[in-house]
């Protein structure tokens, strides 16, 4: 059959050589695996580059001279970190909101595990100063501060003061704990942080005391 190359014809039965068919299938399968493997470098090239991974060093923040009720923003790993000096009324409001938030004990963190020193009602080392990553656990917007209690647009009449995410309306109390029945499902993250002095804060690392 195949011994007559000069007499090339494409009769059906002449092509029906099962051993060649198997070789064809095997070769195609091997080729397909190779082609699929070629996707690996392209897909992997989407991952954060070495440079992006290296960026993310801890940052220092100066908290001297903060007025009660003041919020300062510092950038850490490209994200906003808020430092809020809370008034006694703000801290008092946490007792009321304790029962209105999803996760009062911060057992289900968003992206960062809650450091042990923040596993308390005020979610902070010093109750007066709140340090949280200002990124909403819903879809990553940065909530705005709505510290004044009472009724106002997009907020309930008995608003105790806290944060409102402008994107999808999630609300957080003065300790960054998310209220029930909101799109967001987790509290604002508390980054690892430590006090270098009374007025200097290191954000991103809690080992270098």
């Amino acid at each position, binding site marked *: 059959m195949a011994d007559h190359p000069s007499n090339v014809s494409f009769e059906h039965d002449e092509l029906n050589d099962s051993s060649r068919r198997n070789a064809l299938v095997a070769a195609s399968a091997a080729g397909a695996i190779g082609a699929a493997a070629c996707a690996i470098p392209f897909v992997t090239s989407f991952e*954060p*580059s070495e440079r992006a991974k290296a960026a993310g060093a801890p940052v220092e923040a100066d908290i001297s001279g903060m007025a009660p009720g003041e919020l300062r923003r510092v950038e850490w790993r490209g*994200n906003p970190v808020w430092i809020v000096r809370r008034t006694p009324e703000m801290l008092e409001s946490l007792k009321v909101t304790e029962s209105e938030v999803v996760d009062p004990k911060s057992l289900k963190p968003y992206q960062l595990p809650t450091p042990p020193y923040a596993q308390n009602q005020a979610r902070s080392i010093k109750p007066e100063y709140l340090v949280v990553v200002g990124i909403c656990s819903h879809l*990553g*917007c940065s909530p705005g501060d709505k510290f004044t209690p009472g009724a106002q647009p997009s907020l309930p009449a008995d608003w105790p003061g806290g944060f409102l995410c402008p994107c*999808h309306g999630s609300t957080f109390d003065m300790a960054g704990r998310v209220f029930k*029945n909101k*799109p967001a499902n987790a509290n604002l993250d508390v980054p690892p942080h430590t006090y270098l002095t009374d007025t200097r804060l290191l954000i991103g690392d809690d080992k270098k005391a």
Partner: protein
Amino acid sequence: MATADKNIGTSGVLGWVDQRFPLTSTWKAHLSEYYAPKNFNFWYFFGGLATLILVLQIVTGIFLTMHYKADSAKAFESVEYIMRDVPWGWLIRYMHSTGASAFFIVIYMHMFRGLLYGSYRKPRELIWIFGCLIFLVLMAEAFFGYLLPWGQMSYWGAQVIVNLFSAIPFIGPELSLWIRGDYVVGDATLNRFFAFHVIAIPLVLLGLVTAHIIALHEVGSNNPDGVEIKAKKNAAGIPLDGIPFHPYYTVHDIMGVSVFLLAFSAVIFFAPEMGGYFLEYNNFVPADPLKTPAHIAPVWYFTPYYSILRAITSDFILWGLTPFLLVFLAVVWMSRGTKSLSKLIATLAVGAMLVGFLVLDAKFWGVVAMGASVMIFFSMPWIDNSKVKSIRYRPTWHKYIYAAFVIVFLVLGYTGVQPPSPVGQVIAQVGTLLYFAFFLFMPWWSEMGEFKPVPDRVTFAAH
């Protein structure tokens, strides 16, 4: 010479080409001898207009890339440079930005035409599927393009949409990191979105548009009466109610194009920002990763789906979605015409969702509902059981259902541009249920009622 055997009816230069390339035959097959129904109305302008806008977007886009810089430190500035310093740059940029909104207006009209006249029904299912894919790809194209000016809305819009993927259980956070290429939306994200916007997605779009038109020309166009014109042909095999696309509809479409360009130019010259709807005011502020603007909303064409995303809360899952799905399941089981296999599949799907409601949180279901609200269009050819294609011969109350659907779509669009509020949320939640009810209950309501007799030939009066 093998080519001499070809029977072509042309000679000279054209004959030389036709021996080697199917020029005349392609021209005939798709234009001068492609027979379209003679009773096309207003709604049939939009397919051609969508093609026109596609060309406009490609041409203006090419010229914009000559001045734009895809670098997070320079992008915002380079767009301002185009607007202020590049000769006529402002016009090219406004054509491109207005073109994006015009594209969606035209596509929504084109899709609505399909709903009205049953253009997705046998044998046109694949045309509809290609069309739905075009719509999806177009949304991706618009989304990628919106990051490029690197304004506040660009930045936070991209942040929200990329984070949608993080709601997927297990792989979500890694997936959104992979899409961004950095821990936050940054330079890496901007560069890859630029590549997608200017080359990858447009290539896919062109391929899909070609497939859409090839499928259309294979089966022939539907028309406002939903009558198959190929059923009645003359001795030469030409549909009695068909007229050649060229010159009849090419000339006809020039009229539509003129009216469109009149409106399009008016927007470009007098209201290119369209009151903040075509170009949002916050996007004239450079991206600031530390501060989300007080009010953020996507561009108008995404807001109905965005409203659905926002509507899904844990309360709503309990008192809204769960009863809704149980009612749906009850209807499936009570319906006599439904096969047992379909009943089983529906039961398993609803059961899986109810279990899922307990296990996974509202954030994930918001993303699912938003995805489903777009993907559900694909099912149209198989969920519409009406005896006739065209709305003209359906029971009159079907028209009210379509009108209600359009109103729900517009209301969802409206609540989507508004800041979140308790009242707006309830409206969006009711709207979400009505939106899905339109599709999920269509297999039953579409076959109910008194249908009107369909004529043998299209209804047409010469002007």
